[in-house]
C-alpha cells in the first residue's frame, strides 16, 4: 500500500509541473465545452485533437489533456440535459428525466450544482479506486464473458421499464421498440444486412447521438411550440442557485451509491457510463422514501446517475491503463493517442511507463478539482440561458443540433435521423409515452444481441450456459426479481384502485 502512495506522490510531482497543469486545464475547459455542445462528444473531439498532440512536447502532457477532455465532457454533458432536455452526451439521457423537470420548476440552479458536485465526488472516489484497487479489478472486467454481458444487458432492459412513471406496459413496449431500432444495420457477427428496409445509409445503423438529440431535444422543442405558440421563455423563473439543506440530505447518499455503481459498471466493456447511470437511477427510485417524485423533479434522480456516469468514465481507464484493453470508443481513441506517442498500452505499461500511468492518475485528481472550480460558477451563467426567449432559442437549438450532428461523422443522413427523431419524439411526448426506455434499450441492443448469440455458440446451441455460470446466473436471477417485483407492485396498485 505504501508503495502505491509513493508512486502516486511521484505521479503528483509530474502532474504539478506547469506544462502538465496547463494541459489538464485546457483539457478540462475543452471537455466541458464539447460536453455542453450537443452532438459533438468526447470521441469526436479527441479524434480531432489527436493530430495536434503529435507536436506536444511530452507524451504525458498529451495523454493528460486527452483524458481531461473525456471526464470534462461528462461534467458538461448534463448542462443542456437539465436546461433544454437536450442530452449533450449519450450518458446524460437519464439526467433529462428529473433534471429538466427541476429546471421547469425553477430549480435549474440546484440541479446543475448537484450534477457538478456529484461528478466531482464520484470522479475523485473513482480515481482513488483506480489508484489503489484498479489492477485487481481489471481481471473482473475480463471474467465478464458473453453470458454475463447478456445477463447484465437483460437486467438493464428490465430496469428500463421502471423509468416511466405510467403503466409498465408502455415502458416495456418502448424498450422493445428501442431494441428493434438498435439492431438496424449490418450485423457485426455475420455481415448480413438487418432490418435496413433496403436503405444503404441504414447499413451503418441508426446513429445514437442524433437519435437522442431528436427524440429528446427536438421533440421537446416541438412540444413547446404546441404548448406555448408565443414568445414565452422556456421557464419563467430561475430561483435559487444552490441546493438547499434537504436537497443535500437527499443527494449525499445517492452520490455515494452512484459512485460505487458507476465504478464497477464502468470497468466492463460496452455502454459502461450509460448502464451505470441507468442502474443508479433505478436503485435511487427503489430506495427512495418518495418513489412517486421520480420523473417529476427528484434531485436524487440527478445526483445518482450523474455521479455514476462520471465514476464510470474514470473507471473505464482501468482496463485501458492496466491491460491495454480499450472498452469503449473514447478509450479506443486514447489507445491510438498512446500508440502515436510511442507508448504501447498493455500489461507492461505499469513497469515500462510508470511515469505516464501515475502522472495521468495524479492529474485526474487535479483535473477534477479544476472542473469543480470551473463548473460551479458557470451554473450562474448557464441558468441565464433560460432567459433567452423561446422564439430565438428554438431555431438556435435546431441549428446547433444540426451542426453538431454533421460533425459526428460528416454525414447528412445522420442529420435526417436527427430531424425525423424529432418528429417521433414529439409524437411520443404528446401521447405521454416516455422516450427514455426506448433510448436505453437502443443502446443495450447491440450488447444484448451479440452476447446472446456468442453465448449460445459457446454453449453449443443450448441455453444452459446462462445458468451454470455463477456470475451470469446471479445477474439473471436479479433481473427476474426486478421484473417480478414491478409486475407485482403494479398489479397490487391496480387492485387497490379497482377496490
Amino acid at each position: 500500500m505504501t508503495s502505491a502512495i509513493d508512486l502516486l506522490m511521484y505521479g503528483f510531482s509530474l502532474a504539478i509541473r506547469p506544462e502538465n497543469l496547463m494541459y489538464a486545464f485546457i483539457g478540462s475547459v475543452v471537455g466541458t465545452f464539447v460536453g455542453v455542445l450537443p452532438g459533438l462528444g468526447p470521441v469526436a473531439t479527441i479524434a480531432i485533437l489527436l493530430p495536434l498532440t503529435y507536436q506536444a512536447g511530452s507524451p504525458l502532457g498529451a495523454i493528460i489533456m486527452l483524458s481531461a477532455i473525456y471526464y470534462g465532457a461528462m461534467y458538461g454533458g448534463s448542462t443542456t440535459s437539465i436546461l433544454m432536455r437536450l442530452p449533450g452526451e449519450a450518458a446524460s439521457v437519464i439526467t433529462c428525466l428529473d433534471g429538466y423537470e427541476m429546471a421547469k420548476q425553477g430549480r435549474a440552479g440546484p440541479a446543475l450544482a448537484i450534477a457538478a458536485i456529484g461528478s466531482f465526488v464520484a470522479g475523485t472516489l473513482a480515481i482513488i479506486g483506480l489508484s489503489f484497487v484498479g489492477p485487481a479489478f481489471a481481471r473482473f472486467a475480463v471474467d465478464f464473458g458473453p453470458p454475463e454481458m447478456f445477463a447484465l444487458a437483460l437486467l438493464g432492459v428490465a430496469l428500463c421499464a421502471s423509468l416511466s412513471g405510467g403503466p409498465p406496459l408502455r415502458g416495456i413496449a418502448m424498450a422493445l421498440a428501442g431494441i428493434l431500432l438498435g439492431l438496424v444495420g449490418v450485423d457485426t457477427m455475420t455481415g448480413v444486412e438487418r432490418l435496413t428496409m433496403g436503405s444503404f445509409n441504414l447499413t451503418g445503423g441508426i446513429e445514437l447521438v442524433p437519435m437522442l438529440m431528436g427524440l429528446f431535444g427536438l421533440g421537446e422543442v416541438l412540444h413547446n411550440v404546441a404548448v406555448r405558440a408565443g414568445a414565452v421563455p422556456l421557464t419563467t423563473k430561475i430561483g435559487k442557485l444552490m441546493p438547499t439543506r434537504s436537497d443535500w440530505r437527499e443527494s449525499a447518499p445517492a452520490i455515494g451509491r452512484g459512485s460505487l455503481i458507476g465504478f464497477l459498471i464502468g470497468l466492463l466493456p460496452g455502454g459502461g457510463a450509460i448502464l451505470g447511470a441507468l442502474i443508479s437511477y433505478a436503485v435511487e427510485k427503489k430506495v427512495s422514501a418518495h418513489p412517486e417524485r421520480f420523473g417529476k423533479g427528484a434531485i436524487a434522480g440527478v445526483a445518482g446517475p450523474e455521479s455514476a456516469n462520471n465514476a464510470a468514465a474514470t473507471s473505464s481507464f482501468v482496463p485501458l491503463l492496466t491491460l491495454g484493453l480499450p472498452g469503449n470508443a473514447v478509450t479506443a481513441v486514447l489507445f491510438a493517442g498512446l500508440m502515436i506517442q510511442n507508448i504501447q498500452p498493455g500489461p507492461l505499461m505499469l513497469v515500462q511507463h510508470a511515469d505516464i500511468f501515475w502522472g495521468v492518475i495524479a492529474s485526474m485528481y487535479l483535473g477534477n478539482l479544476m472542473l469543480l472550480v470551473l463548473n460551479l460558477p458557470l451554473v450562474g451563467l448557464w441558468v441565464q440561458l433560460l432567459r433567452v426567449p423561446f422564439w430565438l432559442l428554438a431555431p438556435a437549438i435546431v441549428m446547433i443540433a444540426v451542426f453538431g450532428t454533421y460533425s459526428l461523422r460528416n454525414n447528412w443522413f445522420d442529420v435526417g435521423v436527427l430531424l425525423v427523431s424529432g418528429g417521433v419524439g414529439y409524437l411520443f411526448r404528446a401521447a405521454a409515452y416516455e422516450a427514455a426506455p426506448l433510448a436505453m434499450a437502443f443502446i443495450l441492443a447491440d450488447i444484448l444481441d451479440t452476447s446472446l448469440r456468442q453465448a449460445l455458440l459457446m454453449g453449443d446451441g443450448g441455453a444452459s450456459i446462462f445458468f451454470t455460470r455463477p456470475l451470469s446466473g446471479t445477474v439473471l436471477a436479479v433481473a427476474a426479481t426486478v421484473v417480478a417485483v414491478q409486475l407485482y407492485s403494479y398489479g397490487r396498485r391496480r387492485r387497490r384502485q379497482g377496490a
Partner: protein
Amino acid sequence: MKPRIALFAAAAAFAAAFAAVPAHAQFPERPITLIVPWAPGGSTDVSSRALAKAAEGALGQPVVVVNKPGASTTIGMADLARAKPDGYTIGTLSSSSYMLKAQGRDLPYDAVEAFTYVSYYGDNLIGIAVLNEAPWKKLADLLAEGKAQPGKFKFGTAGVGSTQHLTLEALMLATGSKFVHIPQQGSAGSMPALLGKHVDFISEVSVWAPFVAQGQARLLAVSTPKRADAYPDVPSLGELGFDSLRSVQAIIGPAGMPEPVRQRLEAAFRKSLADEGFRNTMKKLSMEIVDLPGPEVKKLVQGELQRATGLVQRMKATGG
C-alpha cells in the same frame, strides 16, 4: 438586439469562417482530404494518419484525415466512390472493403473498378495466438486437436467474413479440423475474450502484441507470406504450406482520376514510406511496410478478391 448590428456581426462571422481562395498553381493547390472508413483509433486510422503527416511534406499541402466509419467501411467507400476524381479526395483501402463483395453483399459501388489505385503502404500482420498456459506449442498441435475433437475448441476473430476469419476457415478446409467461430465486435474484443478464456485461441491483427511481449500469450503462426521481422521465431502460414489472404492497406481515389495527378500522389505517398515517424508507427502496430506502384495494387486486389470468393464458395459447399 438591433437588427443592423446583428447583420454586421453576422457578416463578420461569415468572413471569418470562409476559407481563403487559393491562387492557381500546380496540383495540389489546396488541402487534400483522406477518407478513413474506420472509427478513430484502429490500426488503419493510426497508420494512415502517420502516413498522411509524412505525405504533407512531399505534397506541400495539408492532408486532412476525415473518419467516415460504419458498416465495415462501406459507408466511407461509397462516399469516396462518389467524390470528384480530382485528386483532392482520396481514401484508404482495407481488405474488408472487398471481402464483403466476396461474401456476395450488394454494394452501391464496384468493389474494384470504382477506384483509382494510388499506392500500397502495408500489410496488417495477422497472427494465431493462444494463452501461454495453453497446451499447443505449434500450429500443427492445434490443428491435430481440432481434427481429433471437432467442434470442441473455440476461436475469436473481428467478425464473420473478416480477413482474420477467412484465414482460419482456409486452414480448417485444408486440414479437415473443425473449430467453433465466436465472432467478436471488431479486433478490440478478441483479446479480452482470450484472456477471460471465453475462447481458446484467436486469429487477429496485432492486438496480441503487448501480451506476447509480456509472456501472457504465444503466437503459433503469422499470416504473411514470409516470416515477420518482429517475430523471426514464428512460422508463417506460407512456409507451413497453407494458403493465406493478405490484409491490405492502400491509398486509393475515385475512378477516373487524371493520370498526372495520380502519379503525383503516388510519388508523394511512396516517398513517405521512408519517413521515420511513419516507420515507427508501423512497427508499433506490427504492420509490415510494403511498397507497390498503383497498377500493381489493382492487380493484387483483383487476385485477393478472386481467392476470397473461391474460399467463401468452398466454405458454403462444405456447409461450414
